């Protein structure tokens, strides 16, 4: 952290008051990435970090499967096994799927609404660094040999000091707390962005479905994160300051944890799935060459899911002793929520129906989502039936359910998105052949791994046991599942190879010409890869699928005829008079302080001191930082406007003013 600080004092010729530093001037290489406030770079950072954690989580999964491949497995001991499955779940949910969604949201959402950046670019950068800090903090627990071991939902009182005496659950509580702040800040940021920064003419109901789903997700996060924040604080206080929230010995009711966790937790599962639904809703129309069937239904069912998702949480607690009335009510509400979900599936099918389908890798993954999520949704309905769930809960049947929805639904959707938007982001496509290997290995391996878990679960194999004895009929399907897990691993390897090989192939070649897929939404107005300033000129929007309508029209016989080529419609990306927000050192400084505070809580309160100081310095310098860099690469005429934001301080709620790129958009016109 000290590196940029050292450099600061020299910056900015004009005499600035004490503690006010000019903004970084780039400098190239990694410094550009550390100080960037560009939503596209931040999106790429999110994606890269998520894939890194995906490697870790996947490795943990393979160890779990190796241990379970045979009865009386001895690959890992019970203690390590507990840590493995806990960290696998936590990593995949919080450090892979959520940041992948953030990657796509950051990169695409401003483009899809025709904006030059998000509303608060520096806050956006801070969100990423906080997420990374939280993720690294969590995984640091491996290095001290004391990873969380209470399961991703961390039921009390098992997570109290009595039963979890190590630091594992503290890493869990603090790490997730930091990552949670990141999600909350980014949710607030994106909500303001969507509401305030759409291009002229883009009404809410002309927004692409992906943008809509991301918006719904941000609302879910906005209201769900504070609930887990409370839960994690209570856990932390119980463990470290002797509070009694979950301590039955003192008369407390540990069910409080379950309620708080699942009030957060069920909205959270929609946070995981809706971005993928959004991606699929972009991919399927493009590759079926038809508009999305029932756009309004798609949007409204997404909103409906967003609302109903709040009223079903206790279906995770059917056997926790919540009483017959609660069980009845939550059974009903859970069954209802399957309706809007079903609407979406039918709409995708209807979109494909009669379309000119092109089975690209991206489209294959999208159809994978539709089919696999349907299976997961159906098994979900089977445990919405509470009497049936009494049999299923805590068995591998549940493991099968949530992997069908999260792997089959969410993760495959992100892969579909990778293949679809790779040319937009990196200027070249991913290879189709390896892409198809990627898809088929993953989908076959996935079904081999998780399909049999339905059977294992109904036959009574419980989840979270580190091994099982021979003779219960578990042997065959467990071995089969382990083989499947390695097939998945090969699929992922294909993806990694594809990334490397296609980058190598593209080297020296001109970037992908605009609009590789005959796509529909605003991001394709920009050349590939997207230039730093996004749009040369802000697009005036007059319809849903604006980009498509500029290329195609219907003649008097109702046939679709071309009105312009993509090259004519797309912008060239060579505008040089666009003013962009300048980079900043401070988001990463603020984010670096929090894990130090965390270590302080765990080991020695004195470590909190430098952490707090770092945060305070970061916030102070952030607030006093000059708003713009007039000499920056895009330093067009935008004068230094009065900067009266002193006094905003301390916490994320008081984010200071950021330049509104839309404002500059006006000056370009």
């Amino acid at each position, binding site marked *: 952290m000290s590196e940029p600080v050292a450099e600061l004092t020299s910056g900015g010729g004009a005499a600035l008051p004490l503690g006010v530093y000019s903004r970084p001037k780039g400098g190239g290489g990694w410094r550009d990435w550390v100080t960037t406030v560009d939503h596209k770079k931040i999106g790429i950072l999110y994606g890269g970090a998520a894939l890194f954690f995906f490697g870790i989580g996947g490795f943990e999964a393979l160890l779990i499967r190796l241990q379970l491949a045979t009865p009386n497995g001895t690959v890992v001991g019970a203690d390590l096994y507990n840590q493995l499955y806990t960290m696998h779940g936590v990593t995949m949910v919080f450090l892979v799927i959520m940041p992948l969604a953030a990657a796509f949201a950051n990169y695409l959402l401003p483009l899809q609404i025709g904006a030059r950046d998000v509303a608060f670019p520096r806050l956006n950068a801070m969100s990423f660094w906080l997420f990374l800090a939280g993720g690294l903090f969590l995984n640091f627990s491996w290095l001290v040999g004391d990873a969380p071991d209470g399961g991703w939902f961390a039921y009390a009182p098992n997570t109290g000091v009595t039963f979890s005496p190590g630091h594992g659950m503290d890493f869990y509580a603090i790490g997730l707390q930091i990552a949670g702040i990141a999600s909350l800040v980014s*949710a*607030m*940021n994106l909500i303001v962005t969507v*509401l305030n920064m759409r291009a002229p003419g883009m009404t809410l109901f002309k927004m692409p479905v992906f943008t809509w789903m991301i918006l719904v997700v941000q609302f879910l996060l*906005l209201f769900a994160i504070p609930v887990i*924040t409370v839960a994690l604080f209570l856990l932390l206080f119980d463990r470290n300051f002797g509070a009694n929230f979950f301590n039955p010995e*003192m008369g407390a009711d540990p069910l409080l944890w379950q309620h708080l966790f699942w009030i957060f937790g069920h909205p959270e599962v929609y946070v995981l799935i809706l971005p993928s639904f959004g991606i699929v809703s972009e991919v399927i129309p493009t590759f079926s060459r038809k508009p999305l069937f029932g756009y309004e239904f798609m949007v409204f069912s997404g909103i409906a899911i967003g609302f109903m998702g709040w009223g079903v949480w206790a279906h995770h607690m059917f056997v926790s002793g919540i009483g017959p009335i609660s069980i009845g009510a939550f059974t009903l509400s859970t069954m209802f929520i399957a309706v809007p979900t079903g609407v979406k599936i039918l709409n995708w099918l209807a979109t494909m129906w009669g379309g000119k389908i092109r089975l690209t890798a991206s489209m294959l993954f999208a159809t994978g989502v539709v089919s696999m999520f349907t299976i997961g949704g159906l098994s979900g309905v089977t445990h919405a039936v509470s009497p049936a769930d009494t049999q299923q809960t805590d068995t591998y049947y549940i493991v099968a359910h949530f992997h069908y929805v999260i792997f089959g639904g969410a993760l495959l959707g992100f892969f579909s998105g990778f293949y679809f938007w790779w040319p937009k982001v990196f200027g070249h496509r991913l290879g189709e052949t390896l892409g198809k290997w990627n898809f088929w290995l993953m989908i076959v391996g996935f079904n081999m791994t998780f399909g049999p878990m339905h059977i294992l679960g109904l036959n009574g194999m419980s989840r979270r046991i580190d091994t099982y004895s021979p003779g219960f009929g578990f042997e065959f399907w467990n071995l089969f599942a382990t083989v499947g897990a390695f097939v998945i691993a090969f699929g992922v390897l294909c993806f990694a190879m594809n990334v490397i090989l296609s980058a190598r192939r593209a080297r020296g070649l001109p970037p992908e010409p605009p609009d590789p897929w005959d796509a529909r939404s605003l991001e394709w107005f920009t050349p590939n890869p997207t230039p730093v300033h996004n749009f040369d000129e802000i697009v005036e929007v007059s319809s849903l699928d604006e980009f498509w309508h500029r290329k195609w029209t219907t003649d008097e016989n109702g046939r679709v005829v071309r009105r312009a080529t993509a090259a004519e419609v797309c912008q060239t990306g060579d505008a040089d008079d666009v003013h962009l927000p300048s980079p900043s050192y401070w988001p990463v400084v603020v984010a670096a302080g929090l894990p130090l505070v965390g270590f302080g809580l765990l080991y020695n309160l004195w470590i909190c001191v430098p952490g707090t100081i770092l945060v305070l310095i970061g916030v102070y310098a952030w607030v006093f930082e000059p708003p713009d860099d007039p000499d920056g690469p895009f330093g067009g005429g935008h004068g230094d406007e009065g900067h009266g*934001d002193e006094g*905003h301080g301390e916490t994320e709620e008081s984010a200071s003013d950021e330049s509104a790129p839309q404002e500059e958009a006006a000056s370009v016109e």
Partner: protein
Amino acid sequence: MSEAIVTEAGEPARGDHDHGDHGTLTGISNNKLLMWVFLGSECLLFGGLISAYLINRSRFHTGPAPGDIFDIPFTSVSSFVLLMSSLTMVLALSALQRGDIRNNRIWLLTTALLGSLFIGGQVYEFTSFLREGLGYTTSPFSSAFFTLTGFHGIHVSVGIVMLMSLAISSYRGTLTQKNSETVEIVGLYWHFVDVVWIFIFTVIYLVPSPTS
């Protein structure tokens, strides 16, 4: 009518230059919207803490009961102090909107002072509870009580820091009519913290609590 702007969004409120939010589609300032979005989220945070308190308020068998230990007259006074700080806060804003820097500064400082008085009262309350045998670890009730009111106290303290920073920048001449929105946003936060206390004061203190 602003509703139409939001949902139709056909007419971006461009050229709205005197408001400082020219260029946003809704005509609403990004910063103010951010604060309101944040306050919406805070409702769930305090809701969680209040619920955690409510289900634990009768779990006190290892220590004093809430109904026996609360000092209603004292808390009433400090609640009143916080309530009045909302008035001074809004007067500070209204002064700055008129361009009255001097009164703005006075009211900002008064608000910070009233907030500090409230915090002082809380410190006194906590220490006297401690003396009467109600520590943080005494019972589920005590943990929940100190956590809830402590979180609120931290929010007030953050507000005081923001108010003081505003006052300092006023002395340095950088807080003028032009950036009254900054004061307004800090004010929103401050009033929010006040309404949370309105809730806490009634539900936690005034509604009769279990006695031993």
